[in-house]
């Protein structure tokens, strides 16, 4: 059984981005880039399924600029067997990525696609669901537990009220939540090995996908700043402030 794992190159989660002064976007020049943390969890889950003998091959896919090769190498250092880069300098929105992934799924015929539930740059939380709909497959989003066996997956999902468990027929799309697993650190030997794993590059046009954006960003601004607060000396002063100044008690 083959598992496909899409991975996105994003600004590292430790970086606090700054909005460009001309309001066209955020400044990502010279900023540390990493694999989207949710996608790292997705790669880890797929690799564990392979180690458990459930999956036979893990294919990582990234869509974007040439530098996404690094992201694919990271996925292969965690344990993915090969990588596919859909290379383009164009702005890619979730619908376009879902269509690219659909084209690859048609070709690669995976039984499971494991996506991160959201990317921490655009915070869209769409691609997995869109892919699932375009394929006509079931979905299990926000997964905190995944078990795969003969033609089906049992997935526990984190929902607003708690947890729910679904049984879905394969092929299917699963999207990961934070508590699905803790990704391993790639070891140096595995990073070296990853450099030799196959990495294929295709273009959106090769897949017959129109990636033209549907949304135009008119401007990007900083959110309103909270005005600096005060430090209180003790609980008595805190209660006084909350009652008489903020009037929230």
């Amino acid at each position, binding site marked *: 059984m083959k598992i496909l794992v899409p991975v996105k190159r994003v*600004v590292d989660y430790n970086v606090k*981005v700054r909005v460009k002064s001309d309001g066209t976007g*955020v400044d990502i020049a010279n900023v540390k880039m990493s694999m989207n943390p949710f996608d790292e969890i997705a790669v880890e889950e797929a690799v564990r399924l392979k180690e458990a003998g459930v999956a036979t091959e893990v294919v990582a896919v990234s869509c974007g600029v040439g530098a996404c090769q690094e992201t694919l190498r990271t996925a292969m250092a965690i344990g993915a067997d090969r990588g596919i880069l859909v290379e383009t300098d164009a702005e890619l*929105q*979730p*619908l376009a990525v879902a269509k690219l992934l659909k084209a690859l799924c048609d070709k690669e015929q995976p039984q499971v696609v494991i996506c991160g539930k*959201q990317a*921490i*740059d*655009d*915070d869209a*939380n*769409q*691609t*997995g*669901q*869109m892919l699932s*709909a*375009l394929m006509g*497959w*079931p*979905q299990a*989003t926000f997964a905190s537990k995944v078990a795969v066996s003969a033609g089906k997956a049992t997935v526990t*999902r*984190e*929902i*607003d*009220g*708690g*947890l*729910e468990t*679904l*049984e*879905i*027929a394969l092929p299917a799309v699963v999207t990961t*939540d*934070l*508590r699905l697993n803790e990704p391993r650190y790639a070891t140096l030997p595995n990073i070296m090995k990853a450099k030799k794993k196959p990495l294929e590059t295709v273009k959106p046009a090769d897949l017959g996908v129109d990636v033209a*954006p*549907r*949304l*135009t*960003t*008119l401007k*990007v601004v*900083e*959110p309103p700043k*909270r005005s600096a*607060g*005060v*430090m*209180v000396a*003790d*609980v*008595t002063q*805190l209660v006084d402030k*909350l009652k008489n100044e*903020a009037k*929230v*008690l």
Partner: protein
Amino acid sequence: MTVLVIAEHDNASLKGATLNTVTAAAKLGGDIAVLVVGTGAGAAAEAASRVAGVSKVLVADSAVFADQSAENVAAQILAVVGASAGSISHVLAPATTFGKNVLPRVAALLDVAQISEIVAVESADTFVRPIYAGNALATVKSADPVKVVTVRTTAFEAAGEGGSAAVEQLSAVADSGLSKLLGRELTKSARPELGAAKIIVSGGRGMGSGENYHAVLEPLADKLGAALGASRAAVDAGYVPNDYQVGQTGKIVAPQLYLAVGISGAIQHLAGMKDSKVIVAINKDPEAPIFQVADYGLVADLFEAVPQLAAAV
């Protein structure tokens, strides 16, 4: 032009998030139709018909929707949009785990973009949404014929009562047969919902254990009638269930008062609570970043300060 609002409900009643979504819909202009997709959802449909500003309630009631599976609910929404012959200009749902699960399917099958988690409506095709954990706000314009939008509920007031919309029954789509609900483990609590609470007491890794979390924070939350929240670290460590998590990837809250106890203030946590009216931080580390967003900061050992606070309010 009709704005279709997808109701989040439990068949017996509407979830509060639906009311915030109706308010966002009202900013678009046009009629508002609420779609209730459920099983024995008469009471929820009835409630929807009484929401101010709603002109029509559409109900698809069938056993097919008992699990509220994304596949079946999305298929029903698509049937409604298809049958409207182009009169539905927008499909809105709350940006809850329900809306986030279902709506991207609808967008993909309509071949349109989804605009996620809007915090403001600029015009019928232009919206403001947070990106990068709320560190930037993007204004985006959609060129698609139907706008599929999820709504950050804390950014819009709840719509009031006073409507008397007609309720129309629809025929339900067939079961996709792709997905089956095996069970739900819902957190039971007599406290207010995180999303709707006026006061939230939230605990982080500084609580040290689940026992401490409950022993220290519950008396305070009881006194204040507050909901309980948590940082990711507290959830990951198993102090409290996942649905307590506040943040970029947990719940977004904006209460009147947010008390952050033993929480350092990582950007991912701030993303979920920085729109609270008043923020109080209790932390023993004077350098903790949470103090940069707190209106009132108290550098103290939480195990001393919180019981004192509970006694004083």
